[in-house]
């Protein structure tokens, strides 16, 4: 491995949980069959002897990250740049590459590789410096000044510049090769993390195809949890409809593959009910409207908003967000200053109810105001094939002719919408306890909830209540939304979290702090595609 030399090694690192060789597997010599015993399942703290008695082999490594998505990737990327060699970290994951889940979700929600995601030019998960930004990189690659002009005049005289999904994935692929991500990846299903008597943690992994279940325990000083969204939740009436009718054809989620809807509409004209007012509904509308224009279809679109935003909204003139035609408009998931400006500084100081209130003010479903989308919707409204409604659905049923009828409660009284397809774009997220690993942390490892109900983390992203000195559990990503830093479930937010975690680990002696000199040297290595 190419490194900056021995000076990269953390001189004061003395992890107590580490075996002589950084990654070492001890055979499961116990009498157990290598599976979890009742005693292990019920104990909050595990001893080495308890794990050995179960016959579970132990792997020693100082740092493990759970998830293996973008959150794990940017964290190990930061740590690699801070000088941590690959043999001191393991990524425990059931996916093969970090952008696998993200690419699946963007693709089914109508952002294939050539389309642009909703992310800022300088939010590069493959480049901790965000320099050169995506716009500069695209300008160089395509020999075009257009991306540069767009970032210069955004957001007033042009829409925000956003990178193509394909460009993001290509960058991640390059960076994962550069930091030798594959060397750190261990495939399998993480079952739980428990505190270890004597310090640190055991993370139980079930390798693929291990039948009967035979586990592996990773014994580490540090654990990082970035398991993403706990799960998708449907609106109650949609869930009831799908359960009762076992109909996954007419009523679909935008976060699932629903290409059959667009295929059918190309063959036979139909009515589509779109639900939700966020970015995914905008994407689905774009697809329906693009197909309508490209294939001369006569698709009718009914768009149902639960909360209909008719104009600018907010408590006062210093906190007023743009809105109209049902949508709340905002360039990105959050107001831009949560990633580094005054909102970030403000939120860092707020606790409890105050923080929850502020989240509500800046949150809520929103989507960007984009010129192309506005043109399409204006045309649809003028020609009568795109209609919006405000209300909630009480019940759904199938009519004799196969149409799905939604009984809607609106401000003007009850109504009915008959549609060939219902596309749910509400994107409700399940409670964190729906995720097995997170539920186990809440139940056995002392983790708690923050003011908005997700995992409660410190400003350093240490998971409160889970300390097992000298070990620490960190958590970042969607499961920790509601903390001192609001944008945590975004590309840039994950990098901000990774920076805080790296700085905290540097204070604990696990890696070096990235100062200006190291940062410049490492950036040069990045620019020339050399290993950290």
């Amino acid at each position, binding site marked *: 491995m190419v490194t900056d030399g021995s000076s990269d090694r953390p001189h004061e690192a003395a992890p107590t949980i580490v075996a002589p060789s950084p990654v070492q597997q001890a055979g499961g010599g116990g009498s157990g069959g290598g599976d979890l015993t009742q005693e292990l399942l019920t104990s909050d703290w595990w001893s080495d002897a308890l794990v050995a008695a179960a016959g579970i082999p132990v792997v020693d490594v100082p740092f493990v990250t759970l998830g293996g998505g973008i959150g794990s990737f940017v964290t190990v990327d930061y740590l690699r740049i801070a000088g941590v060699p690959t043999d001191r970290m393991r990524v425990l994951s059931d996916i093969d590459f970090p952008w696998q889940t993200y690419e699946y979700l963007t693709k089914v929600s109508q952002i294939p590789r050539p389309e642009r995601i909703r992310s800022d030019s300088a939010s590069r998960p493959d480049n901790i410096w965000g320099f050169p930004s995506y716009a500069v990189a695209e300008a160089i690659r395509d020999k075009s000044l257009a991306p540069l002009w767009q970032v210069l005049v955004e*957001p007033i005289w042009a829409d925000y510049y956003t990178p193509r999904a394909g460009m993001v994935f290509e960058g991640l692929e390059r960076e994962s090769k550069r930091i030798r991500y594959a060397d750190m990846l261990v495939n399998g299903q993480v079952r739980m993390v428990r505190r270890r008597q004597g310090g640190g943690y055991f993370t139980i992994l079930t390798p693929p195809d291990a039948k009967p279940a035979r586990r592996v325990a990773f014994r580490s000083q540090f654990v990082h949890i970035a398991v993403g969204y706990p799960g998708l939740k449907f609106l109650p009436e949609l869930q009831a409809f799908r359960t009762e009718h076992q109909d996954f054809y007419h009523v679909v989620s935008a976060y699932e593959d629903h290409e059959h809807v667009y295929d059918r509409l190309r063959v036979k004209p139909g009515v589509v009910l779109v639900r939700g007012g966020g970015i995914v509904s905008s994407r689905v509308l774009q697809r329906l409207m693009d197909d309508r224009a490209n294939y001369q279809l006569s698709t009718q679109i009914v768009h149902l908003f639960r909360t209909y935003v008719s104009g600018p909204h907010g408590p006062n003139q210093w906190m007023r967000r743009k809105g109209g035609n049902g949508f709340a408009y905002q360039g990105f998931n959050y107001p831009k200053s949560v990633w580094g400006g005054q909102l970030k500084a403000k939120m860092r100081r707020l606790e409890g109810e105050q923080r929850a209130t502020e989240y509500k003010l800046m949150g809520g479903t929103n989507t960007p105001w984009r010129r192309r989308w506005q043109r399409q919707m204006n045309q649809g409204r003028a020609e009568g094939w795109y209609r919006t409604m405000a209300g909630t659905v009480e019940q759904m049923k199938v009519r004799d002719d196969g149409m799905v009828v939604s009984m809607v409660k609106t401000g003007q009284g009850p109504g009915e919408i008959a549609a060939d397809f219902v596309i749910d774009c509400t994107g409700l997220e399940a409670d964190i306890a729906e995720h097995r690993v997170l539920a186990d942390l809440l139940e056995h490892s002392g983790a708690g909830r923050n003011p908005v109900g997700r995992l409660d983390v410190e400003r350093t992203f240490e998971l409160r209540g889970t300390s097992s000195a000298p070990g620490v559990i960190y958590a970042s990503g969607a499961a920790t939304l509601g903390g001192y830093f609001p944008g945590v479930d975004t590309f840039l937010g994950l990098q901000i979290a990774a920076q805080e975690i790296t700085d905290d680990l540097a204070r604990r002696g696990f890696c070096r702090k990235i100062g200006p000199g190291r940062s410049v040297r490492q950036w040069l290595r990045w620019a020339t595609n050399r290993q950290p």
Partner: protein
Amino acid sequence: MVPTLNGRIQTRILLLAVVGGLITLIIVPVLPGSAPLGDKYQNGFLVLLSVAVLGVLWELLYHLLMQWRWEKDWPTLFGLVEGIPEGVLIWVLLSAGAIPGIVGKVSGADFLIQFILVWLGVWLAANGPMRVPFIRWRFRGGRLV
């Protein structure tokens, strides 16, 4: 970088000192004015100092204006066009002899060349390269300390 007030001021002072100072050092000998080099340097650095000192007051105004923006951001282009009112003010003060220490008279061409190059240099540095040595800078609203 989305600035806080403190971050705006710190970034302005650092970039004017380092990038502005370097550009001034290089550009002054080739400016068209016929004054002795020492006088030209003195005037050049006094102009730079004025941009920094008056800039702190300008930053208060920008920060106030930013409060009307929902995002509490400051688009890239704003950072560039701020240079117009700031440049005009400095020129008015220069013409009125209100900047202390200026030797003789600074010609319009000398001022324009230096001011535009310094402004562009600082603006470009703030919009990218600054993030390379200072990886925490953009997440702290432009604060360095």
